[in-house]
């Protein structure tokens, strides 16, 4: 009889320590969750929030102009320094750049993401992911330096314009006030192009993910109810994709706000917030001002998210 070899009990109890531990965890899922979440939460709480708080604290100190030492007294003097024309210029320049990069990358990313989400299947979808992700596999520095070469006066862009007998066009663009410069690699336009290229995947992927979640039947339903493709886009597709666009814009906007390498390698020598932070905390030793500069993107992002929420960007979540 084979049945005789089976244990003749309905409920098995006991067993080794590990087994009892796993029984305990299975029957108390909350305990398991707590154990799994405690280390990352501690890390986030102590290391991340703690550092952020220390930073915030630093920004309320000031530097003694004579000794160059930090005075550990609460003051708003450092924040006042942000409003000096030179510093304010840096902030305005950075925010304008971040806004331009975000708007243009959203405009470029949307059709690509729409194609990937709605039409690409199988091999084409794989190709899409590869094309979007592949640049992320190589070093950020390598890509930025590559762009410096591409945009340089002796670079391929200048050459292509010359071959097409369009040098006058490139020269015309470079002659524009503010955005122009001696060459693309030494102009705001060049900085903008590199920012756009580097952060574009961070816009495409969330937009694609949000469009992927819009069932095809919703688009058919809007057409069925009389909406032209343009109306369907405005009333159904865009509102439902908006959380993705906002998520993408948070990436492109905040990454541009904080970056200090791209404007240093490609662009005019005028500073962006990231560079200002880098300079002040380094050679200048002005930690309070560096901290105050760092608070600027945080505050701007706070307002940005608040505004996005007010506009209903997260209603479809």
């Amino acid at each position: 009889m084979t049945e005789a070899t089976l244990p003749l009990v309905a409920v098995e109890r006991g067993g080794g320590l590990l087994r009892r531990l796993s029984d305990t965890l299975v029957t108390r899922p909350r305990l398991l969750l707590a154990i799994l979440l405690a280390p990352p939460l501690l890390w986030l709480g102590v290391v991340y929030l703690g550092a952020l708080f220390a930073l915030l604290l630093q920004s309320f100190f000031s530097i003694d102009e004579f000794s160059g030492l930090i005075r550990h007294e609460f003051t708003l003097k450092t924040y006042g320094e942000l409003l000096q024309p030179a510093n304010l210029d840096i902030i305005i320049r950075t925010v304008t750049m971040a806004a331009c990069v975000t708007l243009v990358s959203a405009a470029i990313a949307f059709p690509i993401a729409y194609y990937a989400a709605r039409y690409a299947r199988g091999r084409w979808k794989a190709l899409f992911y590869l094309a979007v992700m592949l640049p992320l596999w190589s070093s950020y520095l390598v890509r930025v330096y590559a762009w410096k070469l591409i945009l340089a006066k002796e670079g391929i862009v200048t050459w292509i314009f010359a071959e097409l007998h369009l040098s006058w066009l490139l020269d015309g663009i470079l002659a524009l006030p503010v955005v122009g410069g001696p060459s693309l690699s030494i102009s705001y336009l060049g900085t903008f192009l590199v920012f756009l290229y580097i952060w574009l995947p961070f816009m495409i992927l969330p937009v694609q993910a949000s469009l992927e979640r819009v069932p095809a039947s919703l688009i058919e339903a809007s057409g069925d109810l009389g909406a032209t493709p343009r109306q369907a886009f405005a009333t159904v597709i865009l509102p439902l994709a908006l959380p993705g666009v906002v998520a993408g814009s948070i990436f492109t906007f905040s990454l541009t706000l904080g970056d200090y390498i791209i404007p240093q390698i490609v662009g005019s020598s005028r500073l962006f917030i990231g560079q200002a932070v880098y300079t002040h905390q380094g050679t200048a030793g002005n930690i309070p001002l560096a901290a105050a500069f760092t608070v600027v993107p945080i505050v701007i992002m706070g307002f940005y998210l608040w505004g996005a929420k007010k506009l209903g960007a997260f209603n479809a979540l």
Partner: protein
Amino acid sequence: MVEAPGLAPCAVAQPVAVRFQQVSRHFGSVRAVDAVDLEIAAGEFFAMLGPSGSGKTTCLRLIAGFEQPDAGHIEIFGDTVEGVPAYRRNVNTVFQDYALFPHMTVLDNVAYALRIRGMAKAERHAKARQALALVRLEGYDDRRPVQLSGGQRQRVALARALVGEPKVLLLDEPLGALDLKLREQMQVELKELQRRLGITFVFVTHDQGEALSMSDRLAVFNDGRIMQVGTPEEVYARPRNRFVAGFVGASNVLEPEIAEALTGLRGHFSLRPERIALLGAGESPAPDSLVAEGRLESLQFHGATRRLTVAVPGVTLVVTLAAAPARLPQQGEVVRLAWPRAALHAMDESS
């Protein structure tokens, strides 16, 4: 010249709501709809019945305008619609998954078609409330679709499709996601709604019970073709071929050899299980009946009915008994069956 074989002109002089002439729609090598001819009369409750992949949903999407035919001609109330996109057709759809807009309230969902037409807010909301009253869903105006039950979503989808006063309402398996009780209730309500509004309803379903109970006429689809069109009674009583006999209700199909042995007639016959009676010991059959003897293989209790399978030489017959017999035979016992000669219905030999 294109003809519509097997379609007699409508007896009543009603305008034709939807006309298909030799319509085909292919997806690669798959013939989803293959040379279909069809006429749906105005004001009719028309069901398209068939198994999944039979082409019924593609036909619905051809009427809605989500698909364009590869060949053939489609008219809606006399207007040619090839090349006309969905948003220019006065036809609305109740989708299988309801397709409610998740970012809008119930009221805004229902008012959507009116908003697209540029109707002022107060007016379109008033009309949307009327439509919601029509489907008996009041007091949920400000809810989001996710906050509703399946049955409530179904009503919203129905109100949204009706608010624009379409000429034809298309329903794509609208009751499929509901539980049995709600489904039966909605069947009655839909039928009542259609009668009251007088709009042509075209209803796609794979549930033969639903098609039989709700429709004025129905078309049975298989492999992209229409097997039979007729009233529920016609299709049930006189299935044209083996497929219809098996798909619409249950049926015993007698092959020519078996039929000859049992009845003396040669041909394919359909015999409905409920037409067969179980003869008690010594009981003689009614006049003009055919009798067969077989071994009882199984007996199932279904509440209102009992279902017997009886192995007669050459064929296993399914028998449905409405009333309990005086004595229930045991499994393996030899029983005698009888059915009126008129219960045998001769079918096309094809398919």
